[in-house]
């Protein structure tokens, strides 16, 4: 018994390598057609995280880098389910996170945006999905920030996500957005995703995880491609 998924990137929802509206793609997109490997390989596996040890505060970006107080901004809780394309939950999936602070400033040394750093907020964290594919983390809602792609270009508020399922085909780096952002229609990175895929990047406000007198909740479900059921069948 085996279940395999055609693990190609789904062009109905995935962005292309080259999209001239996002200017950095012009010199960085591969231009030759991709080569399709002849055989399925025994090595189409990937790192597994069953025994991975998270730090105690890795999942709480509001606490994991405080120096002398609480980070400034709107506290939020983000949760969701990670599944494969068949809807099966993917347990023990590592999720790495990074984001701007509430003023729209990244800690990264090359971020020159004239907005304040927050001494109590690094803006990075990690969490894992549980046995049912669920994850949850706490953070501060990131601010919008300007970038140099075109005059008066601004990125919508977003959190960067990096995920590993069970094989390298499932590898995903993406960005989670917030509902109703007026910057969507002006953002070439968001709009590089075909219209059918865009709503999949937008979290939903979720009253069920909103914590009274504490934090608004958002839900963001993630679907990884990959064929982690039976990588060996065609050898």
């Amino acid at each position, binding site marked *: 018994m085996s279940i395999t998924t055609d693990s190609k990137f789904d062009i109905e929802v995935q962005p292309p390598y080259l999209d001239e509206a996002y200017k950095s793609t012009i010199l960085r997109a591969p231009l030759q057609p991709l080569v399709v490997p002849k055989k399925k*390989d025994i090595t189409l596996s990937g790192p597994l995280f069953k025994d991975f040890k998270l730090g105690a505060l890795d999942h709480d970006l509001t606490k994991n880098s405080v120096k002398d107080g609480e980070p400034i901004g709107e506290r939020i809780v983000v949760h969701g389910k990670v599944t494969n394309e068949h809807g099966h939950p993917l347990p023990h999936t590592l999720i790495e996170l990074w984001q701007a602070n509430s003023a729209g400033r990244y800690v990264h040394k090359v*971020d020159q945006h004239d907005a304040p750093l927050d001494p109590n907020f690094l803006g990075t964290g990690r969490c894992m999905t549980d046995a049912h594919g669920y994850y949850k983390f706490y953070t501060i809602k990131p601010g919008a920030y300007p970038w140099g792609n075109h005059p008066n270009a601004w990125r919508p508020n977003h959190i960067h996500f990096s995920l590993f399922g069970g094989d390298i085909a499932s590898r995903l780096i993406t960005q989670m957005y917030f509902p109703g952002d007026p910057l969507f229609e002006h953002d070439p990175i968001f709009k590089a995703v075909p219209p059918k895929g865009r709503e999949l990047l937008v979290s939903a406000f979720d009253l069920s995880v909103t914590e009274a007198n504490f934090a608004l909740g958002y839900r963001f479900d993630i679907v990884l491609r990959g064929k982690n059921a039976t990588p060996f069948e065609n050898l």
Partner: protein
Amino acid sequence: MKTSAVKKQTPSQTIGPYFAYGLTPQQYGYDFDSWVDHDMVKGLNNVETITITGTVYDGNAQPVDDAMIELWQDDGVHKLFGRYGSGTDEGNTFTFKTIKPKSVNGQAPFIHVILFMRGQLLHSYTRIYFADEQQLNETDANLNAVDADRKYTLIAEKKGDSYVFNIHMQGPNETVFFEI
């Protein structure tokens, strides 16, 4: 048995320019623990290690200073993963310490490369093969799926006890990228 997908894949988005403090924090000097780095052989004893170095070049043949390179190898004995950013070393090179994987089922040994950078909305996949495996490289089905005049882009050159594998995103030496 094949079943059709019932859920749409979550679309990919670029890693952007600011990943370092989240994904490669210690390499870049940020105060957050890295769980992975360029040393893929930690905890392995009595193995013959190799070094793989290289540079990622853009379409103007300029070194890319904000790429993230991941390596994955699995020869049935050793499953090894590494990650490195191209923003800290002189010349924006990347470096990995690992072992050369064994040949599996008569294939030429190779390492998977997953490549991310600002300006890539979707990551790309390539492979590192080894120049000193000439015989297996000649008969390998995957290498032979590649146009003969582009095969060399997948083969790391041996220089002393290290291998050099440069990645060209575009141009006459554009690296072969795979659909995975």
